[in-house]
């Protein structure tokens, strides 16, 4: 492989005088499931914002597929092939499950400005919507308004719509926050399965639940006070006393 899929180099991000990220370098290759962990205020969200081109770093570069994406914003990001989901439930309350997924499919196919065709008769769109819905177990819920779904389904729908962009890489901000422990594993299983089927090349997630982090990632990046404390396989992280003490805490020692 000539270049990493996503690469941040020497990223510094400042909020006024506060240094949120202090010289972070990170390269994500194809086939990786990377979890970013760290205590509150470690800079996880800032890092995600930098990696997704929302926030332009004060110094340093971010490249996705070799292209500089610093501060390019969400629309261009989606066009380049990177999708993102959010920590808080982020849905279109009144749109149905099918419509929610269709928004992504329509924009990915560049159909957003066709104003005379009837959406429901666009085979290419409806078929893709059905495909994605199937992967996430929404086949029987296509006509339901998003606001009527359970909390877990809402999170899943958020992720499903991001997946419908057919991105190369997806960045998930706490995909399982706010749902019960039992649902967490269902969400993760669905998500990982769907990623394989759709052909997503890499997943980056921010996650607090260490059980989820250790079960699903093949690489863990531990942040602390804006710096990378450790960047290793789950086994490597487990053996790193310093990380276990500052980031994971004793209760979670596996």
């Amino acid at each position, binding site marked *: 492989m000539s270049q990493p899929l996503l690469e941040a180099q020497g990223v510094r991000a400042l909020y006024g005088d506060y240094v949120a990220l202090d010289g972070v370098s990170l390269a994500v290759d194809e086939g990786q499931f990377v979890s970013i962990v760290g205590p509150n205020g470690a800079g996880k969200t800032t890092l995600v914002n930098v990696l997704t081109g929302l926030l332009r770093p004060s110094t340093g570069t971010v490249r996705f597929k070799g292209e500089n994406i610093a501060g390019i914003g969400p629309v261009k990001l989606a066009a380049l092939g990177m999708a993102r989901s959010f920590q808080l439930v982020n849905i279109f309350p009144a749109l149905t499950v099918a419509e929610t997924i269709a928004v*992504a499919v329509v924009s990915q196919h560049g159909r957003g*400005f066709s104003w005379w065709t009837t959406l429901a008769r666009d085979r290419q769109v409806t078929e893709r919507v059905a495909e994605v819905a199937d992967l996430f177990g929404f086949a029987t819920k296509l006509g339901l308004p998003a606001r009527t779904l359970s909390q877990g389904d809402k999170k899943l729908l958020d992720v499903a719509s991001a997946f419908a962009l057919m991105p190369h890489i997806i960045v998930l901000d706490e995909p399982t926050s706010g749902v019960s422990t039992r649902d967490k594993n269902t969400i993760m299983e669905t998500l990982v399965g769907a990623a394989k089927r759709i052909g997503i090349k890499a997943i980056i997630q921010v996650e607090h639940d260490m059980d989820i982090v250790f079960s699903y990632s093949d690489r863990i990046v531990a942040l602390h006070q804006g710096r990378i404390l450790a960047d290793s396989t789950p086994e490597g992280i487990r053996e790193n006393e310093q990380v276990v003490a500052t980031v994971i805490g004793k209760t979670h020692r596996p």
Partner: protein
Amino acid sequence: MIRRALLIVALLVGLLVPFLGRDYYATLMLPFFGYGIALLGLNLLFGYTGLLSFGHALFVALGAYVAAFFTTRLGILHLELILFASILTALVVAVPTGLLCVRYVKIYFGMLTLAFGMLFYSFLYKFYHLTGGDEGMRVLRPKLLGQSFESLDKVPFLIGPYYYYSLALLLVAAFVMWRIVRSPFGLCLRSIRENPDKAEYLGVSVRRYRFLAFLIAGLFGAVGGTLLTIPTGLADPLLAYWTHSGNLVFMMLLGGFANFLGPLLGAFVFIFLQDQVMSLTEYWRFVFGAILAIVVIFFPRGLMGLFEGQAGGRG
């Protein structure tokens, strides 16, 4: 099914009104056609895209003044040409104002559209030589599809050929708007109404869509304005005044903005109710204020919401 049946009944009634022998009611239908078209546009902006304009009357007045200018100043009477000119003029005005307005949302968008509406009102009011100032401009009887119907007096012309011309135009406008809201473009607009931040992450360039919705709303407003002003024969600055924009918003809320047909129903009820209440009391504004309060508090989904019951979801 019920909705389709109601629609057919409404259409039949619409076709038959001129034959009922009550010319007065037929003339009341004429503003309904104009307002209906203008409201289809306003509702694309609010009901579908989530932007509430308090300056939609600007475009209605624009369409009216184009009709006045063409018939009295230029001596061009072909209504098709006038409508085409209205659309072009609306676009010329909507592009710069839209580019500015869609940079803002919610109350800021509303206030900015209100400001542009009042700016236009002042222009109409002050530029006497061009616009006739507070006296307005006369609008002459246009030719419909090249026909001038000279043998007909004013009322027979209005409730005859002009009535069906307007009705046809409303149907065409409603069909076009129906296609728009059912299209992929329409879906993107609704996603913006629901959650613009998420829409952006799904690749929807929010500002561009809002701008296009603004343009479409503007040209529907202008077409409505042109139709509206022909029966009255006068384009006057009050058409652009903010209370007129307020009336448009009222009609939309009254009928229910969450529904495609809601604003049309709202326009219909508003016009006939205003007619009835005005003949009963000079305090009709008081009555209308009370009605608006009741609608907003108890029937936020408008009159259409009553038909849909609890089950109807937001389109």
